[in-house]
């Protein structure tokens, strides 16, 4: 039995190390074009679940049970763009080789595709930056390159593991807006893992709460945030430090930070 293009179904997923059960009976489904958030703290099993879907569990960890059905290719966006990129090769070449590995074709076609992808993720001055090395880019620009790399294989599903945790708040907003736009334009399904409930709420329609390797609650983001049923979800929500509301009256018209995406 297979799932629709862009859909993802996980049933009874079990991941263990030699001594411990790390992910225990996790089941969920993602509809084509949907964005699902997985929220939890360190050790909750959220990142392992993502790695299991990618088919790349960390060393010493095995998938010991359950079924994963994926409707298409999967791309992955990692937390730290500096470690996800090869420091010794130019970003254009990295995206081009990812494209060629996935789609074949000539070097020239791969280069053209790389430029297209970097433009799509709105890397500023993409044509020139093809020749840049990762360290020559800012954190936000690097994360755009990592997203372009993840898109190179033409995935139907994008897995994101804390993709904005290492970023400044205005850059984080840009990357979150970029992911939402890509999702609309490319009809991508997204699985977004984060410890940060407000960040997940900014991207995802539905959310799964994990702790201790298990899913304790799931539902539409607004329901889960407004009326959590599980005590752990409530404690997670209550631990979010509030930022007082901005008064709209004092808005300064016509001012927006550079490169900010609102579409």
């Amino acid at each position, binding site marked *: 039995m297979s799932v629709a293009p862009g859909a993802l179904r996980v049933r009874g997923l079990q991941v263990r190390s030699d001594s411990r059960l790390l992910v225990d009976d996790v089941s969920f489904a993602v509809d084509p074009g*949907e*964005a699902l958030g997985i929220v939890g*703290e*360190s050790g909750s099993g959220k990142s392992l679940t993502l790695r299991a879907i990618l088919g790349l569990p960390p060393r010493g960890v095995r998938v010991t049970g359950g079924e994963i059905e994926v409707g298409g290719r999967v791309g992955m966006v990692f937390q730290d763009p500096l470690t996800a990129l090869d420091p010794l090769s130019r970003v254009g070449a990295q995206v081009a080789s990812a494209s060629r590995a996935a789609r074949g074709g000539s070097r020239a076609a791969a280069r053209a595709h790389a430029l297209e992808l970097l433009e799509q993720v709105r890397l500023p001055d993409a044509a020139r930056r093809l020749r840049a090395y990762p360290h020559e880019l800012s*954190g936000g620009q690097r994360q755009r390159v990592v997203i372009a790399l993840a898109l190179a294989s033409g995935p139907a599903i994008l897995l994101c593991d804390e993709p904005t945790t290492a970023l*400044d*708040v*205005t*850059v*984080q*907003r840009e990357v*979150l*807006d970029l992911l*939402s736009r890509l*999702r*609309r334009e490319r009809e991508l399904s997204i699985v977004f893992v984060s*410890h*940060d*409930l*407000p*960040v997940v*709420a*900014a*991207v*995802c*329609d539905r959310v799964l709460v994990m702790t201790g390797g298990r899913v304790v609650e799931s539902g*539409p*983001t*607004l*329901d889960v*945030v*407004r*009326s959590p049923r599980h005590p752990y979800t409530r*404690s*997670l*929500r209550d*631990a*979010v*430090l*509030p*930022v*007082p*509301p*901005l*008064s709209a*009256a*004092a*808005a*300064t018209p016509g*001012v*927006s*930070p550079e490169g*900010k995406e*609102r579409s």
Partner: protein
Amino acid sequence: MTAVRITDAVVTYRTRRESTVAVDGVDLEIASGGSLGIVGESGSGKSTLARAVCGALPLASGSIAFDGETWGARRSPAQRRAVQLVPQDPYSSLDPRMTVRQTLSELLRVHRLVPRGEVATRCAELLRLVRLDPDALDAYPHQFSGGQRQRIALARALAVEPRVLVADEPTSALDVSVQASVVELLVRLQHELRLTLLFISHDLAVVNATCERVAVMHRGRVVEVAERDVFFAAPRDPYSRALLEAVPRLPDAGGPLAADPARDESNPGGSS
């Protein structure tokens, strides 16, 4: 009484080829027992300023005065004790080969803060101060969780009885629930011990929870200083506003979510 007064402070970094101005003419003050949060993004100069306040970096020009007395980067032991840094990553600031007891008692002995016979008692007291069990004294840093390590780093800073605490992103490496408890502890200790707090963070929510005044740094300069409530409701500077607008907020905790048509379309009418 002004505990900390920073006047026209400039800090530059020199490399062989060029020099970069990291802090560019900053004026700030913190009242005795008060708290000031400096927010800004990477490269804004906020951490550099924090290091200059601690005396870890010299000023190229300008001055930093404590209780009216100007101190440079070369400070006496008593001056160094008076201004303590709580670092972002306690793991790199605690000696992995020393137990908590060794770390704390070395400090207490070297600085002759308590008579020899009272070192053990004071160590236990310090751990209780940061809400840790004194049983933890004989453990090594790696045996603690991130939140516990940050409490130990705090105990270490408090061991030398500082007047000013400089905290540089002390909670950004922690899980959310742990972060909330460390913030709460810091606020309580600041009041109990009447400390003057300079709090550096990129996280506006954490600054809102800890500081009565907020300064925003951007490209080495302070673009705005305001009382907390004024700042969060109605920032004057466009960059401050951009920062606040970019912060993701929970739907019910701080106004509407940033506009995202995709989400709105798929969640017609919201919920509950």
